[in-house]
């Protein structure tokens, strides 16, 4: 019987010919924590009596959610995590290096890998064909020590895409549209597997955006096949050995197939307070916003900053709308400086924060006030998400966000391109 991408990876990692519904124990290639979930992981790891990482596993620690730390308490957690890295040899990505999911994509993830991280957006690496799955601190602690964890093989939904994005529309609009269609629990426990002739028209950066938000439909993973674009991404980073093609079998079994024509998509927005509360940007034209927040593991990549800088160049943000921009990694920030994107953004009244998660989770660096509305390129808009339960968070693509920053209100970007 043919296999989905999820079934291929988990079968290879478990040594069992496994299909949807099977419970298996699989060898993990990479396990990682970040600075808000890592302290509990380290304590559970030690409580279980582990001293070293399992031999088969690569471990990593990312200090990105509070980068740099906003408090004494979090700084103490950073001390604990740096110490853990020294003791175990786990890779340390310190404050300023960037967001865990971006660094994982740039340096570690490869097609066919099994990755677990104590952050729900670990799914991002599915854009490179890795079975990458968010888990809690205890699960990752045991994966660090044992080099494996248990899985229930997910059923897969095939998202079959055709066509090409039109001007002003991209990956973010696709994933918001899809979540609007199936709901915030529409793919709970499932693997979302993207395929079809349109996949070749979705860049790796955009695939990472789409996979990143698979969890917002409840999915366990969001998987793309590994193809020539994946190879190019890895080769450009000196990682040609990490490439191998990975596609689903022709006769793989899917629980559901959803067809999306990229050419027909329009700019989309998630309204407060759930990601599946969607509207077209045009429907929300005129909604006043006090802050635009561009960045995060969803949309802080170079391609995103290129779009944003292109729109902002020679223009200025609306006087009533703050513009906060966070590149997802040091590599992205450096390249964006070299290419002049950062200059364009700052001249347009934008504020650049150090690579990291910024205000996405409401911890620091751009937290909104009561009654304020923020248009964000992040992945979540739950009540209280950006620090105030009285605040409103809308989600959009970088193009919609940048045009809206100039107008001071939510604006369909196609009208200004």
């Amino acid at each position, binding site marked *: 019987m043919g296999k989905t991408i999820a079934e291929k990876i988990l079968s290879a990692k478990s040594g069992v010919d496994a299909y949807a519904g099977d*419970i*298996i*124990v699989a060898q993990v290639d990479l396990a990682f924590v970040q600075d*808000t*979930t890592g*302290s*509990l992981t380290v304590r*559970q790891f030690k*409580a*279980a*009596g582990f001293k070293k990482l399992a031999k088969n596993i690569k471990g990593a620690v990312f200090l990105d*959610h*509070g980068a740099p*730390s*906003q*408090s004494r*308490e*979090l700084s*103490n*957690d950073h001390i*604990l995590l740096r110490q853990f890295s020294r003791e175990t040899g786990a890779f340390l990505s310190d404050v300023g290096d960037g967001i865990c999911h971006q660094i994982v994509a740039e340096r570690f993830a490869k097609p066919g890998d099994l990755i677990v*991280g*104590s*952050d*729900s957006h*670990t799914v991002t690496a599915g854009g490179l064909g890795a079975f990458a799955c*968010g*888990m*809690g*601190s*205890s*699960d990752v602690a*045991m994966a660090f*020590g*044992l080099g*494996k*964890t*248990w899985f*229930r093989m997910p059923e897969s939904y095939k998202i079959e895409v055709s066509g090409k994005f039109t001007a002003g529309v991209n990956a973010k609009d696709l994933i918001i549209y899809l979540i609007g269609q199936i709901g*915030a*629990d529409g793919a*709970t*426990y499932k693997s979302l597997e993207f395929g079809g002739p349109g996949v070749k028209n979705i860049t790796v950066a955009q695939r990472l955006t789409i996979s990143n938000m698979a*969890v917002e439909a*409840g999915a*366990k993973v969001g998987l793309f096949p590994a193809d020539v674009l994946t190879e190019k991404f890895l080769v450009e980073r000196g990682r040609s050995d990490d490439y191998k093609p990975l596609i689903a079998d022709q006769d793989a079994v899917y629980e559901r197939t959803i067809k999306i024509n990229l050419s027909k998509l329009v700019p989309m927005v998630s309204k407060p*307070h*759930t990601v599946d509360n969607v509207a077209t940007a045009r429907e929300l034209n005129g909604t006043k916003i006090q802050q635009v927040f561009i960045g995060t593991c969803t949309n802080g990549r170079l391609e995103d900053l290129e779009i944003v800088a292109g729109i902002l160049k020679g223009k200025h943000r609306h006087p009533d709308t703050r513009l906060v921009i966070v590149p997802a990694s040091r590599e992205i920030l450096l390249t964006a400086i070299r290419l002049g994107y950062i200059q364009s953004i700052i001249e347009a009244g934008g504020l650049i924060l150090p690579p990291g998660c910024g205000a996405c*989770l*409401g*911890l620091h660096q751009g*937290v909104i006030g009561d009654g304020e509305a923020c248009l964000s390129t992040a992945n*979540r808009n*739950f*009540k*209280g*998400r950006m*620090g105030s*339960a009285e605040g409103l968070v809308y989600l959009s693509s970088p193009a919609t966000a940048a045009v809206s920053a100039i107008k001071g209100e939510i604006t369909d970007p196609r009208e200004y391109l």
Partner: protein
Amino acid sequence: MLTGRAFKFGDDISTDLIIPGKYSYLRSNLPELAKHVMEDADTTFVSRVKEGDFIVGGNNFGLGSSREHAPLVIKMAGVKAILAKSVARIFFRNAINLGLPVLICNTDEIYDGDVLEIDLKAGIINDTTNGKKLTFGKIPEVMLHILDEGGLLPYIEKHGDFKL
């Protein structure tokens, strides 16, 4: 047999409603963190909840972050089980890993303040306030074993590995 009061919440109770990300800096100071449990869903919850009570949600309980601190602060509040129509994947796994049962059932007819008796082994919820009996879905066997040991840490301490 577990006996306690129901604290009823609606659909889509996210991990940000359970324990907001703005308190991430308190995650190594659990007693302080726990003071904010369910804060953005119900500011009075923390002062009213008692040892043995239950949280009753609707659809997609616990969606969002992988923060294990969400079920952890619920457990620290004395809650003995979460009842919901459906639960988000990571939250479910995290709760079981902490030894906190999540029971999937039709919660429509459980109201705030109802007194529930729950027989985990028999799979029966008795709402003593309205006299209705509910059954809940089976917890997958691998998770039941982890739950029976009191969570993932005691499970691994006892077995040294995953035993399927």
